[in-house]
Each structure stands twice: as structure tokens, then as C-alpha cells.
């Protein structure tokens, strides 16, 4: 039997001074999952993603990434790049002056040489249809281009899956179309958090909703 990419079991988490936002949340992502995660504002979608990435720690519950149980920061260090996380605001993700340097940052972190990183940058730009964008300055890009590059920074890590947090916010229909094509073309399994029902209709094969701090199929 194949093992899940992500398994969350019985997660409990609350921000200080407020009632628990996650009250025993379970979530499993399989290597062939194309999963959408929905729910009203403040229901804990982003919190769940932050726990998956090890950016915040649950008070209770079990986090398994690629079959390994993760508790401490050290457990997450090697696993994070394999999950290909794309942030909601591309300006958070793209911190380098140029597109090429941003795409190279991940591979360099993973120990690639300059030459290898440059190769991955070219490859990534090609898959996204952004040939020649390497030297472009990040803050001169349009919102749609920034989003594609942000996806590119995740793809450059050669991840086992993608996690997209509200990928369609701030995007027009054409940019959403390009993003859609790019994500599908990777053939990777993914987990998408979104309010955009049309987008989810086209992308995912199953949906989970978070209600009362727990997931249930929709």
C-alpha cells in the first residue's frame, strides 16, 4: 500500500485568548490526491497549512509528512521543500531582486551548484512559458506573472506535491487560466485552499470543508 504524503490526525490548536480554531482535525493527502480545502473565513484553513509546513506547532495531535512523524523544527527542515508551498501573496514569496535569483534560491538551499541552479531556473521558466524572464526585476512584474513565478519557486524545488493557499486572489481570469494550466501540467498531486468555487470545480476531484475545527467531505 502506498503511504500518504501528508497525514494530520486529531490536531488541536488555538490562538492565545481565543477559543480553539482546530478541534481534532484530520486530513490525509495521497500521492494521487487533487484535493480542495474550503471553509468560511477564520475556520482554520491557513492555520492547518501552517501546521503542515511546521511554521506553527499544534497543541495536540500528530503530523506526518512523507511517512515521517514531525514534532520539532529539525524534523521539518528537510521535508518542507518537498511540499512545494505557494503563499497567497506572491510578494511574500518573491524576496529576491530578480526572477532568476528567486528561482535559484531554493535549489541553492538544497545544495545545488550555481550551474545546476541556473539549469533548473531555465527549465522552470520554460515549463511556465516565461522564457527570458530570468533577469526581470520582480517588482516590475504584473500580478499574474508574479503568481506564476511564485509557483515556479515551488516547482524549482522538485517537490512531491503542491500546496496552494488562495491561489486565485488578486488574479484576473486570464492569469487564473495560465496558473491552472501550469499547475495541471506539473502532474503533481496538490492541496488547494480556496474560496473560488469555479476554480475548484475545474481543478480538484475531492473537497473537504473545515467546520467546527474538523474536516468533513463535501
Amino acid at each position, binding site marked *: 500500500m502506498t503511504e500518504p504524503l501528508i497525514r494530520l490526525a486529531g490536531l488541536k490548536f488555538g490562538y492565545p485568548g481565543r477559543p480553539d480554531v482546530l478541534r481534532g482535525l484530520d486530513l490525509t493527502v495521497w500521492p494521487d490526491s487533487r484535493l480542495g480545502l474550503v471553509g468560511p473565513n477564520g475556520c482554520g484553513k491557513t492555520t492547518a497549512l501552517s501546521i503542515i509546513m511546521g511554521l506553527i506547532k499544534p497543541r495536540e495531535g500528530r503530523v506526518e509528512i512523507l511517512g515521517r512523524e514531525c514534532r520539532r523544527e529539525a524534523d521539518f527542515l528537510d521535508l518542507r521543500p518537498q511540499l512545494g508551498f505557494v503563499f497567497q501573496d506572491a510578494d511574500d514569496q518573491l524576496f*529576491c531582486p530578480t526572477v532568476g*535569483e528567486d528561482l535559484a534560491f*531554493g535549489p541553492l538551499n538544497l545544495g545545488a551548484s550555481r550551474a545546476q541552479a541556473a539549469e533548473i531556473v531555465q527549465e522552470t521558466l520554460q515549463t511556465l512559458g516565461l522564457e527570458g524572464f530570468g533577469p526581470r526585476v520582480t517588482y516590475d512584474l504584473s500580478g499574474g506573472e508574479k503568481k506564476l513565478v511564485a509557483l515556479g519557486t515551488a516547482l524549482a524545488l522538485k517537490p512531491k506535491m503542491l500546496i496552494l493557499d488562495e491561489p486565485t486572489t488578486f488574479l484576473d481570469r486570464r492569469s487564473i487560466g495560465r496558473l491552472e494550466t501550469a499547475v495541471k501540467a506539473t502532474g503533481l498531486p496538490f492541496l488547494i485552499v480556496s474560496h473560488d468555487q469555479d476554480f475548484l470545480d475545474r481543478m480538484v476531484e475531492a473537497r473537504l470543508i473545515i467546520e467546527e475545527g474538523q474536516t468533513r467531505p463535501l
Partner: protein
Amino acid sequence: MSHASALSGRGPLARADSRLKIVGLVVWSALLAVLEGRRAATAGLAGSLALILLCSPSRPRAFFKTLLLANSFLLFIWLALPFSFSVPGRVVWSWGPLKATAEGLALSAELSVKALAITSAAMAVTVSTGAFELLSAVRALGAPEKLAAMTALMLRYIQVVGQEYGRLTAAMKVRGFRPRASLHCLRSWANLAGMLLVRGLDRGERVRAAMLCRGWRGKFFLERERTFKRLDAFLGLAWALAAAATAYLSWGGVS
């Protein structure tokens, strides 16, 4: 920011080794600052103008406009220095109690020429290099990585913060806010500044999280491969000769 970033050099100076340009600029500026005499100062200005030619800025009008702006502080020198209350000497012009002296005028002229020469050289170097390559080169010359990385991040996000500021002030304006000398206005500005700080902090946390998600372990990759080319040797030599000639004009006659 986008205005400044649009300026770039197309000449040979843009292709030269950035380390050489930085070292050259430091030495050249120090020399220009201490040299004596109008002849030497003029020679220095000529050298700096040659640097601008070598830089060959992409938009000359914008380049010289910025250069002029950078030299606007010279106005204060000309408001104070030429007159007898600052530099006593032979009076060449007077208007009421104001008496301009020949020595004062000469000193103002020399200072202006020097300042113009230094800012010209600095602009030629920075414009032909670009902010991030400049940081990378400063790092290559031994500056601390953290400092260089922080400056690079600041340059990247100053525009994002600027946009945030624009959105916040627009939201204030559409609700009828107008700057006045009132407590309400001061309080609103304080809120605006506070909000920018809080958002900046949040942004910083998210950027860090995004970096961690890409396997960041605390190292920035500012280093680039650098080779010292024939162009660099030539430029370095020419610059050194110009500096020597300027120094000779300043101190060569006196022994």
C-alpha cells in the same frame, strides 16, 4: 524607486568589474575631497565627467536631473560662504551690509567643483552597476553577509511598503481626511505610521516563513563568479593615472 531602477549604464563602465569600481570610487572621492587648488579640482571634475561618458547613462536627462538634485545642497554654500562674515578678504561686490569677497567666491567655486566631481563619479558608478550587483560586490570585498542581505531585502521591499502606504493614505483620503494642524490629524498620522510598522512586521514574518518553506538554512547567496578582465585592467590603469595627474596638479608644485 522604480524611477531610480530605470536608470542604467550602457557604456564600458557597466561591463567593468564592480569591485574595481567601488574601490576606485572610494579612492577617487577621498582624493577629490582633500586636494587643493582650483586647477586640481577642475581636473578632478573632468575625470568624473569622463566616468559619466564611460557609464553612458540610458536616460541622460533623468541622470543629470538626479545629479543636479543631489547637488542642491550647494545652494547653502553659495548663500553663506562668499560673504565677508564667513570669509574675510578683498570686497568685490556689496549690497547693503552684504559684502562678497574674492576669497569667499573662490572658495565657494572650488567647493562646488569638488562636490560636483564627487557626486558625478558616485552616480556614474552606481548607475552603471545597479543596486543589487553593488551589494554583491560589496559582499565580495568583505562586507558582512547579514548587512548586505538586509540591505538587499530593504531594497526589494521598500516598494511593497510604499504601495501599502499608498493604499492606506488613499483609504484615508476617500473618507475625507485632509492634513491640518490638528490633534486629530497628528493622531491619524501616528495610526498610519503604526499600521505600516505592524504590517511590515507581519510581512517580515511571512517572508521568513516562505524562505523556510524553500529550505532556507540562514545562508543568502549573494556571491557571484567574478573575473578580472582586460577591460578592468585598462580602466584601473587609466583611473590610477588620472588620480596621479590630479594629485600632481594639487601638490606637485609644492615640495
